[in-house]
């Protein structure tokens, strides 16, 4: 988009005020008519601005577009890198390593991630966890869960897994068996297929460009 936020903000307010003033000629600023006009005009202008921005946002947030990785990103190594210009972390996509030992085609990857999203909703993850920072605060944020060093440091040894995705899948299929800290996650009865899909979804989500949230992920001790 060719406009910065300041231009949009100033224009929206300016247009609202000018139209209100023109429509209310002759009415004092404390009058019923003036504020009725102000109400109708500001609501209309802001709704139009929102609709316009929504189309722009939708265009920029297509998977495979400017801000979201394509579904096939699950086949790749992924991580975060400091962007010195923006001064925040950005997701980076590395070489193709496969996912659970194989490479998914775009259709297969989409189907798998779609299934993973259904797992997230059907198990009500959001009422304990936050995803992209939204949800409940009983359990850790999942935005960058795939990238959490905890899987390799703690979970892999105790579940006896050979790979990162294997560790996540095994753990997610029976969390109370391997409690981590005082708060435990219940067993949500995931099948192996569902757990695989869920891990794929989490991996894809960890590559969304979130303007640097959460800050300094995994860089602190």
């Amino acid at each position, binding site marked *: 988009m060719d406009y910065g936020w*300041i231009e949009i903000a100033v224009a929206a307010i300016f247009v609202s005020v000018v139209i209100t003033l023109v429509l209310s000629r002759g009415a004092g600023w404390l009058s019923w008519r003036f504020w009725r006009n102000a109400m109708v005009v500001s609501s209309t202008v*802001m709704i139009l601005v929102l609709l316009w921005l929504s189309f722009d946002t939708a265009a920029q947030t297509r998977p495979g577009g400017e*801000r979201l990785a394509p579904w096939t990103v699950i086949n790749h190594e992924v991580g975060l890198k400091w962007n010195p210009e923006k001064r925040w972390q950005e997701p980076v996509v590395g070489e193709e390593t496969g996912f659970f030992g194989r490479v998914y085609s775009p259709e297969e990857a989409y189907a798998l991630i779609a299934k993973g999203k259904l797992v997230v909703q059907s198990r009500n993850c959001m009422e304990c966890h936050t995803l992209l920072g*939204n949800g409940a605060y*009983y359990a850790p*944020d999942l935005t960058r869960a795939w990238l959490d060093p905890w899987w390799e440091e703690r979970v892999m040894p105790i579940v006896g897994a050979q790979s990162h995705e294997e560790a996540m899948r095994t753990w997610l299929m029976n969390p109370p068996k391997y409690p981590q800290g005082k708060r435990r996650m219940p067993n949500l009865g995931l099948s192996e297929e569902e757990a695989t899909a869920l891990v794929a979804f989490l991996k894809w989500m960890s590559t969304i460009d979130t303007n640097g949230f959460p800050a300094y992920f995994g860089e602190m001790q």
Partner: protein
Amino acid sequence: MTQAVQSHPKLYESQKLARWYFVVAITLFSAQLIFGLIAAYQQIDPNFLFQLAPFMTNRTLHVNAMVVWLLVGMMGGVYWFLPKETGREVVGITLAKIIWWVIVAGVTVVVLVYLFVQIGPAKWTTIWFINEGREYIEAPRWADIAIVLWVAIFLFNVIATVLKARRITGILMVLIFDLVALGALYTAGMHFTVNITMDQFLWWWVIHLWVEATWEVLVGVLMAWALMYLLGTSRRLLETWLFIEVALVFGTGIIGLGHHYFWIGTPEYWLGLGGFFSALEPLPLVAMVVHAVYDAGGHRLGAVNRPAMFWVIAQAFGNFIGAGVWGFMQTLPQINMFSHGTQLAAAHGHLAFFGAYLSTVMVLVYIAAQNLRRPVRIPVSSKLWGWAAGLLILGIIGIGGAFTISGFTQTLIERAAGGSTWAAFIQAYTHPWYANTLWWRFWFGMVMLVGFVLLAVDLLTIGKHAELPKAARQPAVAAAGGGHD
């Protein structure tokens, strides 16, 4: 003010329906508190009901019961005041009654399914019949459709009544516009998208554009009617204030939506737009405080219903503090980057919903309680209401305070210092500032529960015939009775 009673004002059918709205609202309020207490206790002892009724189940019931009872309470308020405003019975009242009982049955089924089925396999059937898995709007798809139908009939009642009465007022104009928007926005939440960025983008259209825009305006409408009833404030004055409020609420709140688009994958311009417009969102809330205090002062607090008048003032300040101050506290992107997704949001959520919406419903139920008794007592008051209100408010201050401290701890330890990993999360919730405040929440929740019991008793007894001093039992000219003669 001298005691007076109004002997036999008849109630409109829609006011009788409103009574059922209030009864169900208050019942669901009790459910909200119980599940909140269980959820709060599970944070203290994570083994409590683990697997049997996990945290997510209790929390789902806690927040869903809240959304439903507050909405039901406010809709009840519209059914209560609409015939007064239009001077006639509500059109389509039979239909309204039918859909109401369908909704009550539906809500019961949804609650039982949440409680006993809880979750399902990763299939469409789960989304349609068990749980949609998106905070606040978990209702399964079939229930979504029932809700849309319900709001549509409600809207029909309002519009048809206005047309039949051939009377449109500024308040009614705002109400109709607002209800259309409110209903339409709900449908933005009724879809499944794999792309979680777009999912949350539209999810916020329901959550934010409800509580920070359309609900806020609905409250403006209800408060205008309440002030007219309680104080006899002039329509011209109320309507002008209402327009100012709507201009500011929609003028800032619609693009203010952007404060939820900082970190979900949406473009960078939302950082500036969201920060700027949402920072202005407290403006209308200040206007509402000025308005309520100005009106009340102008009439020397000479209200016909003491508890309702108290809650009007509590609403004005509560809305400003809970939504305005606690919201502003975390709305600028440079702060939100670290406080986002911490219990600071829960502190704000509690204070804002209580201040803005629970208080509004309290105003409405007290006005209804006064006018449901025969004969109607004017002014009405009781010994209990002050205790009930005091304990409820004390409770929410305690809960809000506790969440503020734990949220602050999370912001510092988990987000700012810890880099938001799983390990950092554990560091935060085991930190003494966090762990200790868990108990405060629970015990202040208990205080609230006691307040609730007193409230329930008070609503059942306030203005009862027996309480009336003999001398006062004379037919009087109704100041501005809820019914018609």
